[in-house]
């Protein structure tokens, strides 16, 4: 086979690179968010907010590459699914960046930071999410369906942690009045991490779609028993 359509392949590679870069940025943002949370570092939180712009720009860049690719190269089948998947992943990653920003904002708002020491399981959630993110990006590049499905399963752990954490936070808030306001902040932070996990599951679903052309539901959260365990 001759090396076909150089520029087309080049564009596809550029696309993958942009996604990779987005993944790295988001990962970094999450790392910083956790550090900011643990070390009560407002400067770092500010940095996250400041750097989110890069992620947003990258998303637009990915979208532009995708649209230009579709408009000029008329991809079909696997290539087309790959491009659409990239676009979907980019918007998930952008949302994830936003969540990092939200976490950062809450960190800044937290005046009574000591409470965080009571809640070391929140950073734990974050670490799992980061691991998931790292792996899902490599699964995307390798088009590894198996791996994507495994990663999606890891979300369960995040969900459980979220369940425990929110309970704990509410208890804390009930225990003392001064915990109410920071507790509310932590409720949100906790929830953001849970959402981050969900976003990665969606990415996994898209990877599966990209390879198999099947829209498979990998998130078990929507089942009824779940609804009764969780409030949001």
């Amino acid at each position, binding site marked *: 086979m001759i090396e076909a*359509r150089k520029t087309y392949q080049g564009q596809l590679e550029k696309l993958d690179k942009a996604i990779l870069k987005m993944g790295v940025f988001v990962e970094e943002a999450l790392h910083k968010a956790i550090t900011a949370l643990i070390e009560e570092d407002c400067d770092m939180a500010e940095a996250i907010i400041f750097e989110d712009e890069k992620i947003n720009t990258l998303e637009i860049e990915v979208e532009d590459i995708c649209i230009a690719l579709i408009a000029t190269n008329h991809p*079909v*089948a696997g290539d087309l699914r790959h491009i659409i998947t990239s676009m979907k992943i980019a918007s998930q990653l952008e949302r994830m960046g936003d969540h990092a920003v939200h976490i950062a904002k809450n960190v800044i708002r937290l005046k009574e930071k000591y409470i965080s020491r009571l809640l070391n399981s929140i950073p734990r959630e974050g670490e799992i999410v980061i691991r998931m993110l790292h792996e899902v990006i490599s699964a995307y590049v390798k088009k590894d369906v198996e791996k994507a499905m495994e990663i999606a399963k890891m979300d369960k752990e995040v969900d459980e942690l979220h369940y425990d954490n929110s309970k704990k936070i509410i208890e804390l808030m009930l225990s003392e009045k001064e915990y109410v306001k920071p507790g509310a902040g932590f409720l949100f932070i906790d929830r953001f991490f849970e959402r981050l996990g969900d976003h990665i599951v969606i990415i996994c679903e898209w990877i599966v779609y990209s390879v198999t*052309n099947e829209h498979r539901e990998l998130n078990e959260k929507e089942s009824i028993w779940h609804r009764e365990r969780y409030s949001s």
Partner: protein
Amino acid sequence: MVQTKPAYLNKGSDLPLSNGNENIIDVKDLKFYYGEKMALRDVNMKIPRNKITAIIGPSGCGKSTFLRCFNRMNEVLGKTRLEGLVEIEKQNIYDSVVDPVRLRRMVGMVFQQPNPFPKSIFENVVYGPRMFGLKNKAQLKEIAEQSLQSAALWDEVKDRLHHSALSLSGGQQQRLCIARTIAVKPKIILMDEPASALDPIATMKIEQLMVELAQDFTIVIVTHNMQQASRVSNYTAFFNATEDRCGFMVEFDETEEIFVNPKNKDTEDYISGRFG
């Protein structure tokens, strides 16, 4: 299946051939030889009624050969041999009792290059009916109008029916050829790269026309333009030929399926432009 046929087409509707089956053509284990050279191997395919079926594939993979099997046009071209079954409306058309001349009245054909006869537009359209012995002027006129209407050409030529067909543009000529084919009241229309000699605008009109004709006819189109196949057809068959293997069918499915989720690696490579 209710069809809105032109009036004159209705006459043929009580023929034993119309049996309301889903598939109008059924190809079983088709092998085809030009002299000693095998050109098609073991093709199995059922072509659905009143749908557009596209056949795509690299050059020389036997697309045209396959198409010509449906009206025994290959026989006109030279020494050929066919094994297997080609059934149209459950009748094996290679049975010795089948008259190829009659067969071709049921299975019309439109060619790559527009090939109107150097006669007037009118004479072109009524050529078939005339050859079958129809002499009634009024009836012929009616057929001409109906066919030209169906071929979306009537408005453009109604004022110059008796001008030479060669005065038409390429795209109009091709539509005239389609009208000429329709006038014979076929059930199936075969088209061998009907738009490859035309510019994009004429091509678009032909494609549009095909979609409209699919209400009344079964259309099988050979094209080496994947974009065209994807735009116009309901079903797509991908043919291929390798160095050590002559033409065979790789994949046959709904067009959307072929272009979104082909099952075969070669199909995907071909439609993605990675082949060869």
